[in-house]
């Protein structure tokens, strides 16, 4: 029911090795895959790259074929006005419903920021946020992202 609001994110296991990220981005570039957003989280010897991109399912297969370790997971993406206090409004709703955030990443330059949120129960998260006046980035919006 909320499928259009749930976005697939690719998580890629990357060894902490010089050039590994270059290899990955070169491959994606060559295959015409555009990245909309990503974040890297790292430990001392490996990292997890989380990417939102144009075609997650095909990309997963492609990366699999090229020896990358990839997993798909669900996230939600919100439009948040680029002004002080806007993010806290959104987060307040989640915390009021006792919903913990695993991780988030975002970037804002213009009027509106897009915030990627990963929670344990994405479906519930969508339900909660639908009752607020926040807007979601939908799967169909991805090309305007």
């Amino acid at each position, binding site marked *: 029911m909320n499928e259009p609001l749930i976005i697939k994110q690719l998580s890629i*296991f990357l060894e902490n090795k010089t050039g590994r990220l270059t290899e990955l981005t070169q491959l994606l570039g060559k295959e015409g895959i555009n990245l909309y957003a990503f974040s890297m989280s790292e430990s001392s010897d490996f990292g997890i790259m989380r990417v939102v991109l144009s075609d997650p399912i095909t990309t997963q297969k492609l990366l699999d074929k090229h020896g990358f370790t990839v997993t798909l997971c669900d996230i939600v993406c919100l439009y948040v006005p680029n002004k002080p206090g806007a993010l806290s409004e959104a987060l307040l709703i989640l915390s009021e419903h006792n919903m913990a955030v695993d991780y988030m990443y975002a970037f804002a330059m213009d009027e509106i920021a897009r915030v990627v949120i990963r929670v344990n129960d994405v479906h519930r998260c969508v339900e909660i946020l639908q009752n607020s006046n926040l807007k979601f980035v939908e799967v169909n919006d991805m090309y305007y992202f």
Partner: protein
Amino acid sequence: MLRFLLCKITNNHINKDINYKIMLFFVNLKRINIILNIWLMIWNESYECMGREEMREVQNKRLRTTVEHVYHNSPFYRAKMQELGITPMDIETIEDIVKLPFTVKTDLRDQYPFGLFSVPMSEIVRLHASSGTTGKPIVAGYTRKDLSIWSEVLARTFAAGGCTRNDIFQIAYGYGLFTGGLGAHYGAENLGASVIPISAGNTEKQIQLMTDFGSTALCCTPSYALHIAEVIKDMGVRDKLKLKVGFFGAEPWTEEMRNELEKSMGIKAYDIFGLTEIIGPGVSYDCTEQHGMHINEDHFFPEIIDPKTLKPCAPGEIGELVFTTITKEGMPVLRYRTKDLTKLIYEPCPCGRTSVRMHKIMGRSDDMLIIRGVNVFPSQIESVLMEFGETAPHYHLYVDRVNNTDTFDVHVEVRPENFTDDMSAMLNLRKRIEARIQSVIGIHANIKLVEPRSIERSTGKAQRVTDKRKLYKNE
């Protein structure tokens, strides 16, 4: 010989006065001899400097006695010899040793605990055991005579390093089942030195006593010695030390480490070689020439064999070191394969000892690693990794030495299907593997999760270990 003459003369009661004078003469001769020995730093000149032919005779006789002893008292060896169709009658000289069966580590383990003892338990006065990282430990039993042999060979070791009864020995090997502590302890006592039985650990206390008691000799593992040296430097007490010599063994170490230890502590550093299976430390020892370790051949007969064909190597050739104990009673061992690779040096040593020397250990004929003093077989790591479904059975071990401490990294591939987006779950997997390895082999390994298919696959025997320590150096 001297004593024999002396007896002959004293038994002759023709002229008591002359007899007394002759006796005095011999006593003085003996005294001069003792002084000379101390100067030469040879504990037991008659054996350590024995002519080669005479040594051969001693070995012939002792091997015959040992074979006779085990054949009649050890069901294990009797069965092994019967399998090969030989009896003690077939062993006449030391050359016949090649007819005897080999003994390997698993034999000793299979016979756990006392299966290889060749005397009744009432004769056994001491038990020691190896750490037993690969399962059951190896147990060694000593009779009173075995202990005296052990103290003898260690007294030779310490004397060869220039020590006398005037020295103060700090024994910083672990005391307990490990042979290092008590072995060195009784050896130093036999020498007549003053012994500080401090055992390993508590480094600042060690150094405190070292300065307060004026220890002149230190016995411990070379890696612990390096640590002690560092702490001495940190405490800034080097000038207060009276330390002049160190006897380091129980793990392989390099000439570079020797230089480092000698420089940092201002001592001479000597290597002791030994195995629990044979007797413990004291099988062979460095003299002041520091060029190969003299083997106590009158107690432990060395052979070098080709580990593949099991045939003897030509003199001076590198191969696997094999020992036969030819005087032990409690647990004599025939042709024990040490898996250590080395070569024997037959040239006479400038120190005056005639015994054959062994080169520093040059490698292993199996894949055993010694990391921070602990024996580690790659197969143990493998079985731990197999317990975890989340990792693939592809791994590589990296061993190195940084700031004198062994580093141990295990690279293991994650399984794609077990990869999760959750960072803490991945870190937790790493932590769980580390904890499991720690509990199985007793040392910490750094686990590094790597990408699937990133570890090199091999078509033949997998190369799973990279040891960058260069512990083994060929000349």
